[in-house]
């Protein structure tokens, strides 16, 4: 396709520069962070996107944080495709925080919302195409032939008379070429690398123990600290006597961390090793003031939210007159769903490393939000953002938790106090208790069926604490957090009338983005309630949904495909049943069918069939891996996931109290990826929402009982 000139002029500027005989290619999207243009794209390889070296390697600085989703392979594939680079010469490195790396969809350097491909795909393809054009132009100039007579393939430009030159040989001359104002992008049908299941670029590092995570950072002269934060949300430090910790050989300091407006008070013990710091912390008797929320517990949360259900709330969608339509229905149904708080529990506990001097700060962090961390730390220290360097390591899981900046601040606070580099590494217990949590949520739904068994309307009211009210209050207007209604406010199902309301009840428990966010509860409520309506209508659950998707051919195709692959409707062994769910999130449509058996209260998930339509695919094997991942993550939440609040804090502390699905319980997961040229959808999150309702619907088929709250363990179910 030919990129529209108007768009390319307005939104895109390629810069080329020579360094050490190589070619640096930078680009900037003015709307994505105006400073980008001024970031010296010609001279600093660390803040330039692409580096073609004389040794013929092509290195892409990956702007997104790699937390398992494979973005460190998918983005290089897109670049290599347009650049016509030899894949075996393509390298990647993790970019540090710099506005040039901002994701255009966020205007910030943030990895989240399954938005990396959607944000970076087109600019990266354009810069690849621009680089290819400049390399060809350099060759044409050297050979004194028209550029039209030269072509690029696998990092070699060839021209008339058998002339050949590698990208490495051409790089320096290419750097002197004028970047093209307009580029032609390849048609996806002509792709050779993108769209294929290439192996990930990071697997070797990750199977040999060489991959560097935040916890692996070692800076000369570094101390290691660990912390205890106030057990209750909003708690304050009354007193701590440092002596017992300082008496332990190797303990260097006891640091009270207080007075941060958005962080609970904490105590850090810094030592020559983590174990010493941990022993030092354990030796302390810390006197905490529980603060104003010390009495908060699950019952109080539930009381508040149940009261909220009685309030009218704020209206988000009002199409037709749903209340009247349902009042006049032949049959009316309603249900109230309860969802608990959830912790992310990434495998790598929270940590960051910082060195703060009067001149600036250097930070090494496994963060999803390097740009936000840089800006926030600069404000805190009274520095300019350019004086704060944030190196991004691999992330040992993110799931939304690492989009916060709290764990970066703990290291910065400690490093500022001590004047030497400090790594602050949290225990698993601190990680779990002082997280941000998937909001506990109540959902009320009401619908009715006409005489033919078709739904006449849908009413939905959601009550929870608003994530955006905590982190971006300016985006919450008149009490409406639109993010809290994802999966409800927009639905592919054609209900003749709809009403969606929201009741915001902000509490002391900090809530945050958790893999697929509101879709965790909207997907469960909608897909189990639809199953309930189908049953009331005496209709097959797949057919019932298809009748509501006649205007949505992609959704219908996913549903039909997953039903076919799961042999929906065919007989199963006694004691087995299938459950179905379909959900759209982050621009992708996912259908899942779970085959479940039950003995007593113990169920087993034998097989999950998954079909995903995420539009134009970059690497189908990475899509498969993300669906498998989302399903296991969702199964853990469905069966076990529950964070309890007591005495104003979190009861659970470690995996024995917050269990995980393991290999033994993981079903065979068959994933089919639909192929088309629709706009990209995300893949990191959309696999998660359908699995819990698919399992719950299968359990209904087996027991005749509807599950209207999670986790399943609360209903006596165990997972074999």
């Amino acid at each position, binding site marked *: 396709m030919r990129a529209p000139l108007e768009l390319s002029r307005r939104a895109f500027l390629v810069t080329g520069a020579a360094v050490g005989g190589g070619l640096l290619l930078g680009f900037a999207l003015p709307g994505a962070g105006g400073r980008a243009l001024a970031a010296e794209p010609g001279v600093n390889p660390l803040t330039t996107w692409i580096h073609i070296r004389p040794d013929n390697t092509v290195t892409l600085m990956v702007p997104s944080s790699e937390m398992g989703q494979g973005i460190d392979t998918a983005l290089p594939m897109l670049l290599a495709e347009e650049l016509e680079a030899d894949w075996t010469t393509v390298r990647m490195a993790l970019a540090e925080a710099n506005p040039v790396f901002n994701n255009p969809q966020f205007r910030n350097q943030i990895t989240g919302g399954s938005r990396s491909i959607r944000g970076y795909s087109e600019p990266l393809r354009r810069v690849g195409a621009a680089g290819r054009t400049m390399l060809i132009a350099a060759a044409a100039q050297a050979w004194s032939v028209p550029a039209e007579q030269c072509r690029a393939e696998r990092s070699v430009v060839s021209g008339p008379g058998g002339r050949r030159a590698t990208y490495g040989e051409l790089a320096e001359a290419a750097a002197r070429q004028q970047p093209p104002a307009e580029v032609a992008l390849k048609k996806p049908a002509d792709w050779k690398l993108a769209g294929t299941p290439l192996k990930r670029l990071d697997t070797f590092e990750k199977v040999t123990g060489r991959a560097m995570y935040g916890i692996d950072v070692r800076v000369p002269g570094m101390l290691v600290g660990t912390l205890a934060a106030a057990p209750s949300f909003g708690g304050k430090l009354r007193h701590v006597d440092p002596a017992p910790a300082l008496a332990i050989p190797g303990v260097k300091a006891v640091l009270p961390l207080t007075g941060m407006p958005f962080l609970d008070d904490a105590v850090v013990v810094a030592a020559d090793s983590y174990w010493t710091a941990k022993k030092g912390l354990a030796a302390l008797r810390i006197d905490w003031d529980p603060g104003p929320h010390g009495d908060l517990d699950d019952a109080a949360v539930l009381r508040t939210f149940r009261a909220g259900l009685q309030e009218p709330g704020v209206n988000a969608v009002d199409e037709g007159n749903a209340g009247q339509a349902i009042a006049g229905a032949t049959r009316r149904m309603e249900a109230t769903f309860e969802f608990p708080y959830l912790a992310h529990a990434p495998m790598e506990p929270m940590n960051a490393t910082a060195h703060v001097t009067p001149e600036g700060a250097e930070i090494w962090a496994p963060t999803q939000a390097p740009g936000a961390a840089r800006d926030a730390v600069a404000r805190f220290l009274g520095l300019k953002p350019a004086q704060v360097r944030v190196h991004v390591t691999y992330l*040992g*899981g993110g799931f939304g938790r690492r989009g916060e900046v709290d764990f970066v601040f703990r290291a910065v606070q400690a490093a500022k106090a001590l004047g030497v580099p400090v790594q602050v590494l949290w225990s698993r217990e601190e990680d779990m208790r002082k997280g941000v949590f998937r909001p506990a949520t109540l959902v009320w739904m009401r619908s009715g069926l006409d005489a033919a068994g078709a739904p006449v309307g849908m009413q939905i009211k959601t009550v929870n604490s608003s994530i955006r009210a905590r982190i971006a209050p300016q985006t919450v207007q008149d009490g409406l957090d639109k993010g809290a209604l994802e999966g409800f406010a927009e639905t592919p199902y054609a209900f003749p009338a709809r009403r969606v309301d929201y009741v915001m009840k902000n509490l002391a428990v900090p809530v945050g983005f958790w893999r697929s966010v509101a879709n965790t509860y909207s997907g469960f409520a909608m897909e189990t309630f639809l199953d309930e309506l189908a049953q009331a209508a005496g209709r097959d659950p797949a057919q019932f949904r298809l009748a509501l998707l006649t205007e949505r051919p992609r959704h219908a195709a996913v549903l039909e495909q997953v039903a076919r692959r799961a042999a929906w409707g065919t007989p199963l062994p006694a004691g087995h049943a299938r459950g179905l769910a379909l959900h759209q999130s982050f621009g992708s449509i996912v259908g899942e069918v779970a085959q479940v058996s039950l003995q007593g209260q113990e169920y087993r998930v034998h097989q999950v069939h998954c079909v995903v339509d995420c539009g134009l695919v970059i690497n189908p094997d990475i899509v498969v891996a993300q669906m498998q991942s989302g399903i296991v993550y969702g199964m853990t939440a469905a069966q076990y996931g529950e964070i309890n609040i007591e005495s104003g804090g979190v009861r659970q502390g470690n995996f024995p109290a917050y269990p995980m699905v393991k290999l033994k319980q993981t079903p065979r997961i068959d994933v089919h990826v639909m192929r088309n040229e629709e706009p990209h959808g995300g893949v990191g999150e959309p696999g998660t929402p359908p699995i819990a309702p698919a399992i719950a619907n299968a359990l209904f088929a087996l027991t005749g009982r509807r599950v209207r709250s999670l986790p399943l363990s609360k209903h006596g179910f165990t997972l074999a």
Partner: protein
Amino acid sequence: MAYSLTINERSHTVDVGPDTPLLWVLRDTLGLTGTKFGCGVAACGACTVHLDGVATRSCSYPVAKVGSAHITTIEGLSPDGSHPVQQAWLEGDVPQCGYCQPGMIMAAAALVQATPHPTDDEIAERITNICRCGTFNRIRAAIRRAATT
């Protein structure tokens, strides 16, 4: 206290307290950071190493207990990623975030060493490490692949 340890076929002398978990000796004293910290209570297996070939959760294993046992970490499983389990992991593109994978690979390597052709049930019983990315389908397939090579 000074302890003599044999790690990846090399001798090391470390001066640490007797209750120091082997994990922190490896990571903080010796700089072998391939072995990971996940929970500190032997629940997740991210810290799995071999003691005389047996998979051991090093976060809860005091250095004083090691004695003369030979310790193998992910760095010593092979110098170049050539161990059959690592090769099977590469073939199947198993890791996602990768943080649990050194421990997972050490657990799998001990399994196929002791049980060269494990059944699915044996894999399910013996591989109890936690992976939050949910790579279990690929782990199962990779162990089968490693067991046939």
